[in-house]
């Protein structure tokens, strides 16, 4: 009884390459090659199975957008508090005290403040962790760089997001050491009076300079970041909505930069003084 069996022969890497038909009969075996196939690479491309929306890069971007918009709310509130410096010593210090008594007696003293602090720290962890993950991915996505690369269509602020973000983070640490955790008065004056600490700090030209550089970075970050957040949340689906979001982002960045900067500038100019 004659029999035909089919058998793959592997290539050098053991991947099926040549198909042999082996005929077995009374007169002995005969072998014929009936097909060959181009071997696939050892580590070939694969398709993802079981995809989840929460494991995508867009999910990380959504987290960045939401935490970022929370920060926008915070800087606007903070700016409002700072501008109280124009109302004088007592008004500024009363505002600082009001933040601590907010919600009392329902909340304990400083309760609302601590809720805000916890939310801000949580947002910061999310924002920075997602940014770091996406930064690393972007680095890995193009390991061989171009010899020549133009940046047609990009605004400068958009290319400043990552290092600008690092600058803002360093400033925030410095700023908290200056005014909240460490309470450093470089002029040697008291540190338990918020208004006087503010005036003593920004009367020092280099502290004002650091502050202004940081505010310029914050402005650039908000200019691109705010529009980017709207885009990531999927709220800019038309050309009109896109223009509106970009305009809003610019106005917000401008207001925040100017609103924060005028306090130290007016301290240095002697308009806000003890």
């Amino acid at each position, binding site marked *: 009884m004659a029999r035909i069996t089919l058998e793959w022969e592997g290539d050098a890497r053991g991947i099926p390459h040549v198909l042999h038909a082996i005929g077995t009969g009374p007169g002995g075996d005969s072998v014929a090659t009936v097909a060959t196939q181009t071997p696939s690479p050892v580590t070939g491309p694969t398709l993802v199975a079981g*995809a989840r929306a929460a494991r995508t890069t867009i999910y990380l971007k959504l987290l960045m957008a939401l935490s970022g918009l929370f920060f926008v709310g915070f800087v606007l509130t903070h700016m409002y508090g700072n501008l109280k410096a124009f109302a004088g010593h007592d008004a500024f210090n009363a505002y600082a005290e009001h933040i601590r008594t907010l919600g009392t007696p329902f909340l304990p003293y400083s309760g609302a403040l601590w809720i805000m602090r916890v939310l801000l720290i949580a947002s910061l962890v999310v924002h920075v962790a997602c940014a770091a993950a996406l930064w690393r991915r972007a680095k890995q996505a193009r390991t061989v760089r171009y010899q020549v690369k133009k940046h047609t269509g*990009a605004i400068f602020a*958009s290319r400043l997001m990552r290092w600008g973000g690092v600058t803002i983070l360093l400033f925030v640490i410095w700023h908290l050491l200056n005014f909240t955790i460490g309470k450093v008065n470089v002029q040697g004056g008291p540190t338990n009076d918020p208004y006087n600490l503010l005036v003593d700090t920004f009367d020092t030209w280099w502290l004002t300079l650091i502050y202004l550089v940081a505010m310029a970075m914050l402005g650039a970050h908000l200019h691109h970041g705010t529009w*980017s957040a709207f885009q990531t949340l999927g*709220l800019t689906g038309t050309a009109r909505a*896109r223009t509106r979001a970009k305009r809003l982002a610019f106005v917000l960045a401008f207001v925040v930069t100017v609103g924060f900067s005028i306090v130290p500038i007016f301290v240095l100019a002697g308009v806000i003084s003890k």
Partner: protein
Amino acid sequence: MKVTLKIWRQPDAASDGAMHTYEVDDVSEDMSFLEMLDVLNEQLNARDEEPIAFDSDCREGICGMCGLMINGEPHGPEVTTTCQLHMRSFKDGDEIVIEPWRADAFPVVKDLCVDRGAFDRIIQQGGYISVNTGAAPEAHSIQVPKEAADRAFDVATCIGCGACVAACPNGSASLFMGAKITHLGELPQGQAERDTRVVSMVAQHDHEGFGGCTNIGECTAACPKEIPLDVISQLNKDLRTALQHGH
């Protein structure tokens, strides 16, 4: 006119590449960019040198096969494909730097040719609608509003050339995906698989090693088909909606 070309040469995927300089004389301003490269290759052939490998197919701007990084811009200085770029966009004596698309998800095959199979696999993960075969249904049985049909058609002009990835500082393919998601999402036939489509395509995109989008907009500036940035907003919105639907 005469041009000096600095071209990336790389014998195969496994070898290292380097920039090589070539001079081409007697270039007519009516030549397309690829015809100018054809002239150079004729000269290289005559000198028994290996011609420069580059992709091209239709040479009329509709297939998406060609794509070169020319002086730091995908498809060069005009808003069109490389095959539709003409030498009149350059001046006599110009130095032109030509590189392949740079993205780890688009590995160089040889010289200026890259493997864009990653795009095919993204499409494989949902860039289609599943329909049963059979007789073609009556075209008027499903009504599509004019605005939706127009938007779907406009973004369906994406030819998958990869210029968006080449331009993106993050090496992201979000504009490409956004075009496909918007195209199918605008049409009634695309609704059934809308949620799974976006999740699977984005997961494949990430798996291929493309970067995340930071909404910089260099992609849309480089796109020969002028796909607008709002398709990325649509992509993000569809993913957010899929997330809310539990996908």
